[in-house]
């Protein structure tokens, strides 16, 4: 088992309380940063660590922080994106529920690095009980002098608020999150200007995922270089993976970014293999919006190399034969699962969650959902398959925010790798209602 930086003390009794958290080395990073480092030195450590955004896009955090505009006399804001709503992803929930103080500590250190005096945690509405967990922890932090005016006598002030969303997936998009936080309808803004220049209330703003902010704590404690030693290449540090699907041990795992996918699925330390001894059919490695991989591309890349749990290795082969690490929502399908049904399910989610602002996404997601519904229920036509691929292509890249891409990718990937299963649904409408297709054949002449 690899090193654990975030969830090391997750199982300690009472870790959600201030006393226990502090006893296990909590808030050391705040002491170190505020007393011995300048804000720029903290940013420098994060840059050195190679930490990449854990929310899905994998953008280097240090670089994002250095883009933040710093005009005189204008407040800056740090927002924590806890609107974790991607189907298959539940890592932030675990972290906030178990060790709320880790997020708060990360927020203080990161806010100090960015020069923000007011910070917000924007949490999804469905996590209502976690709001109470966080607010209780924030109260404790205030009571012990980690938040408020003149923290640790250094003259640094910070107020931290929790803001509860109302259940829209789109509010996890950073500009929609900002709109929602301002009290408006959660429609994504048109970029540029980027939040780093004009974000919350037209002020420079950084939006980071929960796990990214939590990872700042070990980076400041042990140094960016130490953090960068973990992992391979540009995938440094540890990552929380929320594993679900037909596996023996679903749950949240903290892995070093170098574990082979095969080990992650079959090792008893992690997923513990496929449930009931079935065979692997497919895998979605990074949450519902990343391309699905067929069984023959999960553990090996198209070149026959071992696939690793890293940003690069999972994306190896581009979208033709790869996928993405995304937000770490690792969904495993056994041979009894229906890919058409799964694609329809995802598509239904995106059609429901599209904000309706721009035409391709508003109309296209609903259209794809209807066509997939028809295919799944045995009323499909052969031309539907190409139609879906074409609609997905017309949405992709033509929308305001990435939700359009997120809706298009799973559909086009499913058709790319599982076309024979879609065709079977058309040709055998009765059989496809009674049983599942099983594994797809590996294309032999494809290489």
């Amino acid at each position, binding site marked *: 088992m690899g090193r654990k930086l975030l969830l090391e003390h997750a199982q300690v009794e009472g870790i959600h309380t201030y006393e226990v958290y502090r006893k296990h080395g909590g808030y050391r990073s705040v002491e170190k940063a505020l007393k011995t480092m300048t804000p720029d030195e903290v940013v420098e450590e994060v840059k050195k660590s190679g930490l990449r955004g854990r929310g899905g896009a994998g953008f280097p955090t240090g670089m994002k922080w250095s883009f933040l505009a710093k005009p005189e006399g204008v407040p800056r804001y740090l927002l924590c994106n806890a609107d974790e709503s991607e189907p298959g992803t539940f890592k932030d929930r675990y972290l906030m529920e178990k060790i709320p103080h880790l997020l708060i500590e990360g927020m203080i250190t990161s806010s100090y690095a960015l020069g923000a005096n007011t910070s917000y945690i924007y949490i999804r509405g469905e996590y209502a009980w976690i709001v109470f967990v966080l607010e209780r922890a924030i109260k404790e932090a205030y009571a012990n002098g980690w938040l408020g005016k003149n923290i640790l006598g250094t003259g640094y002030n910070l107020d931290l608020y929790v803001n509860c969303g109302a259940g829209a997936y789109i509010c996890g998009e950073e500009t929609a999150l900002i709109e929602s936080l301002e009290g408006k309808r959660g429609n994504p803004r048109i970029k540029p200007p980027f939040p780093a220049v004009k974000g919350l209330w037209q002020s420079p703003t950084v939006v980071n995922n929960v796990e990214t902010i939590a990872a700042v704590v070990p980076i400041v404690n042990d140094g960016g270089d130490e953090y960068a030693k973990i992992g391979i290449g540009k995938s440094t540090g540890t990552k929380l993976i929320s594993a679900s699907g037909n596996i023996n041990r679903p749950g949240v795992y903290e892995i070093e970014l170098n574990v082979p996918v095969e080990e992650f699925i079959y090792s008893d330390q992690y997923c513990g293999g496929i449930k009931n001894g079935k065979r692997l059919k497919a895998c979605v490695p990074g949450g519902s919006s990343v391309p699905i991989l067929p069984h023959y591309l999960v553990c090996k890349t198209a070149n026959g190399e071992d696939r690793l749990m890293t940003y690069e290795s999972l994306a190896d082969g581009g979208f033709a034969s790869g996928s993405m690490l995304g937000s770490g929502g690792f969904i495993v399908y056994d041979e009894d699962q229906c890919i058409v049904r799964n694609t329809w399910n995802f598509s239904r989610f995106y059609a429901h969650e599209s904000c309706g*602002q721009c035409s391709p996404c508003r109309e296209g997601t609903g259209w794809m959902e209807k066509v997939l519904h028809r295919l799944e229920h045995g009323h499909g036509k052969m031309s539907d398959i190409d139609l879906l691929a074409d609609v997905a292509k017309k949405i992709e890249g*033509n929308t305001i925010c990435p939700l359009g891409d997120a809706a298009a990718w799973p559909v086009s990937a499913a058709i790319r790798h599982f076309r024979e299963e879609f065709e079977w649904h058309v040709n055998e409408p009765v059989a496809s209602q009674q049983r599942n297709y099983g594994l797809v054949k590996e294309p032999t002449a494809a290489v």
Partner: protein
Amino acid sequence: MPKVTIDGQTIEVPEGTTILTAARQIGGELVPPAMCYYSTLKGSGGKCRTCLVKVTKGSEKDPRPMPKLVASCQTMVMDGMEVASKANEEVTKARAGVVEFLLLNHPLDCPICDQAGECHLQDLAFEHGAASTRYEFERRTFEKIDIGPYIKLHMTRCILCYRCVYVANQLTEQRVHGVIGRGDHAEISTFIEKAIDNDFSGNVIDVCPVGALTDRTFRFKSRVWFLKPMDAHRNCPKCAGKAVVWMYGNEIFRVTARKDQYGEVHDFICNTCRFDTKSTSDWTIEGARQIDRHSVISQNHYDQGITVR
């Protein structure tokens, strides 16, 4: 001043000009169509995606092309930028895709729609659309709603361009209408069915690119191409009083604001002028209105700015 080349034609424009505005200054075929952008409404644009263009060269400093198609109404020009608009196949394909999306849930009831003849969606579909649809499902429909005594909202025809929402935000004092719902079931609505009661509310009719918002004092009275548009003005205490009166014989059938060649109003008019002043004695008629838009139906009648008499 930055120089930008669009479809091979170069123009120099002030810093901070969008590609769309630069294209409009050149004029002609290369001007991207725009369904949601409205130059006089702050914050509009970026939503319909019909004005997508390809930036083949970012700028003189950074000549890399932009990876995706961009909305020309939102993208600022850079010095040395090269843009492909109508001449590029990728662009025309994407626009055709957007037209298809816009028409998916549009009822295509042009024969009974008051907007027909001056409808931007009609023009757009005529230019970029396909003859038949690939959509085989029931279209989204809504009940027609009266918003106030003058305006009819037929949400079924709406393409959610948000222009009327910006009018409500920027021209009228109270914000009484906006978008509710999400995705393809989102709809324009007055909050809690509250009628728009404001002197400038009628402008939502003029900014609507389709027939979703229509004039209740004009509905089903006549087809627009049977009427003679005349520039006219009157002394109005509330607005500039510059309008277009649409006449049949000596009778004024309807009053609208003056739209430019891209269908945009620069002087918004008040409801008194629009709905309550329909006698020829109220107006000083200046002469025939130049309509130089190449609309589906207008092209035979209002050809080259010569107006029917």
